[in-house]
């Protein structure tokens, strides 16, 4: 009974710590994005609230919470209110299978530094990412607005298309590490990150994960010049904030997954494991912001062609080649 209670307390502590860190970093990712993007466009970016605008996220949160929470006439109220929560929760839950360090020992108990080590961790991520589609699609539909509906339909089509190439791009990684558990995948990369063996899979995963998070150059669901703001046009206050939060948590999850699946996770010389993981996530986030500041938006047919006719065949060929090499040489 005592060990059970202890395990429960440890689980709660881990959950709270991961949630707090994820939310805190997500808030400051917004700041980082605005600042870095401003520099890319030769502006200053936020610089009024606190030194370097460091208090800007706090000001943003206060603003969004105190704003009126409007529901448009004719909207489907229940679905309209639930949709942003679906986006934010599915994004945050994905972090529960990302390991952030080797096992720790405390008072004779082994504590794995991951919220939960599922033996199907990778599938868990996919399940959540496929559920996240509903937030976008239902939010767009429930708003009772043409722009939002178009954005929602685009979002659903885009996310289910790129989920396929994302899943297929990861199969070689699973083949090489011989496990679907994220912890095992990190263990398998001790000393040699998978990016060296699977550069093509890495590339396909980066492109499709970017499309999954609906950011420039794949931000057709919210294309400002044609759809106002797409699926979240009608949202205000903290509900808009939740969509926003979902997007930035998605960037972090993407950074975390990329680090864990291709960049060796928490493995790295000299520095402590947790720091290595954070550095990798930070670099991936910077890269994504940089891409946003550099590339224009794709056209819809280009988006679909890229997903179905380029990435999926490439991923399939990659699986075949990996399998053949595995049979001939062995990993």
């Amino acid at each position, binding site marked *: 009974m005592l060990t059970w209670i202890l395990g429960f307390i440890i689980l709660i502590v881990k959950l709270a710590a991961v949630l707090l860190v994820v939310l805190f970093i997500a808030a400051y990712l917004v700041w980082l994005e605005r600042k870095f993007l401003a520099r890319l466009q030769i502006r200053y970016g936020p610089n009024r609230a606190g030194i370097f605008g460091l208090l800007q996220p706090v000001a943003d949160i206060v603003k969004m919470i105190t704003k009126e929470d409007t529901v448009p006439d004719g909207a489907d109220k229940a679905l309209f209110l639930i949709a942003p929560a679906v986006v934010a929760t599915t994004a945050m839950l994905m972090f529960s299978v990302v390991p952030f360090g080797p096992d720790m020992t405390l008072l004779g108990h082994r504590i794995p530094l991951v919220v939960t080590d599922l033996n*199907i961790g990778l599938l868990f991520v*996919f*399940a959540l990412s*496929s559920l996240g*589609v509903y937030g976008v699609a*239902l939010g767009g539909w429930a708003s009772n607005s043409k722009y939002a509906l178009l954005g929602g339909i685009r979002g*659903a089509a885009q996310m289910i298309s790129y*989920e396929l190439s994302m899943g297929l791009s990861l199969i070689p990684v699973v083949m090489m590490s*011989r496990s*679907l558990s994220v912890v095992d995948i990190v263990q398998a990369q001790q000393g040699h990150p998978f990016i060296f063996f699977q550069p093509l899979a890495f590339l396909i995963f980066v492109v499709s994960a970017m499309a999954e998070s609906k950011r420039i150059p794949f931000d057709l669901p919210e294309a400002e010049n044609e759809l106002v703001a797409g699926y979240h046009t009608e949202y205000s206050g903290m509900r808009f904030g939740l969509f926003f939060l979902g997007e930035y948590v998605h960037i972090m999850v993407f950074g975390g997954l990329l680090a864990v699946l291709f960049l060796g996770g928490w493995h790295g010389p000299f520095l402590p494991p947790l720091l290595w993981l954070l550095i990798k996530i930070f670099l991936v986030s910077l890269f994504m912001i940089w891409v946003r500041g550099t590339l224009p938006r794709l056209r819809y047919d280009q988006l679909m062609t890229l997903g179905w006719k380029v990435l999926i065949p490439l991923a399939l060929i990659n699986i075949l080649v990996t399998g053949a090499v595995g049979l001939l040489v062995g990993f």
Partner: protein
Amino acid sequence: MYGFFFYLISAVVIGATAIAITRRNLVHAVVYLIVSYFGTAMLFYLFGAPLLAALEIIIYAGAIMVLFLFVIMMIEIDAPEEVMFSLGQWLPAAVFGLIYVVAAIAMIVETPGTEISLSMLVASPRQFALYVFEHHWFLIEVISILLMVALIGALHLGKAKNRDADGHR
């Protein structure tokens, strides 16, 4: 504790499915069906089969229902009128449904299911894959060919329609 969760989730699944087939608003029906699939996945997890739970969510809740929702949102069906189906339509359905219920009750009374081994259900992904590909590889190939045929068929239908609509392709 275990049993309590089982009956709670089962009740939610049955309730959600019942609501799903009686809603007139199709989008709501789809949402209730997603809740039902989600509950089924939780039941699988409760049995100690996380692999099946994940597959249930990825394939049913995540892929098939998104396509349903997509089509419903695209074609914007109005809520159908109150229609009473003719006797010839609902009588066979009722008869078959009744047979199904009787068979199910008889089956549950005969074998409560507790002694049936669930070893395959709780297997890890590796054991599961080894079992399936060692014993049923032929069926898997047949299924994959079937899917391939369906894919080609869908492609053909899509192309033929395009040509008709445009007239010059």
